[in-house]
């Protein structure tokens, strides 16, 4: 016993004679019995006839020429050329944005920031000695101390640093000098 659903699914195959003999007999007997499926069958046959009469779309002479040119590689579709422009523009945009990010915030990509030249000496100092960033006061004090120390003895580095007594003496001298200047 064939159902209408089953029959409808096989109607096209039945019309085009693609079904095996046993199945053809089943569908045929169902169509004879069922009014709805018979109607569907007749309508499908009519639609098939109708569609075979559908003409192809006409192509204008100009468009046909453009098609030939496109196939021969002389013309790319408008979309394709826009695509190229869009890709180029987006590449440029990414490049510019990347450059801006690296320039304004070197910490984001430190490995990339190495390749970007810095304008001032201070900036490059910060780059190479990031831990000394904003420690200018301390560094100045240390530098001046070393300067004063050098006047009295050998290099600070050779001796391995100031002893507490030396440190006190140096800074007392400095303070005394300042007092003298103030008095003058």
């Amino acid at each position, binding site marked *: 016993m064939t159902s209408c659903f089953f029959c409808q699914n096989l109607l*096209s195959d039945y019309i085009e004679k693609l079904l095996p003999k046993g199945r053809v007999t089943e569908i045929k007997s169902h169509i004879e019995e069922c009014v709805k499926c018979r109607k569907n069958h007749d309508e499908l046959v009519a639609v098939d006839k109708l569609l075979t*009469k559908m003409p*192809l779309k006409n192509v204008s002479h100009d468009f046909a020429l453009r098609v*030939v040119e496109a196939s021969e590689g002389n013309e790319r579709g408008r979309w394709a050329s826009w695509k190229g422009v869009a890709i180029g523009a987006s590449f440029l945009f990414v490049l510019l944005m990347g450059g801006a990010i690296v320039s304004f915030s070197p910490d984001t990509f430190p490995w990339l920031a190495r390749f970007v030249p810095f304008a001032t000496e201070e900036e490059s100092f910060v780059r190479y000695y990031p831990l000394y960033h904003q420690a200018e006061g301390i560094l100045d004090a240390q530098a001046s101390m070393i300067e004063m120390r050098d006047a009295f003895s050998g290099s600070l580095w050779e001796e391995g640093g100031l002893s507490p007594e030396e440190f006190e003496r140096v800074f007392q001298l400095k303070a005394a000098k300042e007092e003298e200047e103030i008095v003058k």
Partner: protein
Amino acid sequence: MAQSAKTESVPELRELVKENDRRVFSFISYLVFDPEAAEVAVLNSFSEFGKFYRRSVASRRTQYDSDQLRIRLFQLVWKEAKSLSGAPVPLSLGRDTRLLNEATTDVLAKSPDAEALDERTVERITDRVRTLDFDFRAPLVLRDILKFSDEEATRILGIRWGVYRHRLNRARLDLVDCLRGRVSSVSSLRPASELSL
């Protein structure tokens, strides 16, 4: 000598293009509703086909006859049409959900016995074919309108035989409903602006 014989057996690109441009344009017009987008898709497909043709002639490894080249061309067209399905609304793929003119007119009753279809009927049928689902419409257009064989259609669409036959049958049954004017599922669709939510 052997080389020249081989070159002769490969059909000329220009001939192939001239033979198939109308069919390709018809196929695309059923799939893509926007005429401008359809033209671009046709040009892109032929451009890709030209590249494929030149590559295959240059490589000399595989030799294609005109039928195989035609199938390859339609494969590229189908690929191009599918690639447009991700595009926004103006290219309007999928179903054409615009309201049909004279949606309840029974086109089928008037025309099957006529020798040739008049322009108005062709227009009506085209509109109604376009209301079918995108994946169901393609087998119908290839098989019934462009008259490809089943094997060729399955190769073009890259689907298996059973899937292809099922889609073709469903498309025909849906089209029958649509042509008879029993298009409740499609004609009842209204633009979102008209819906009262």
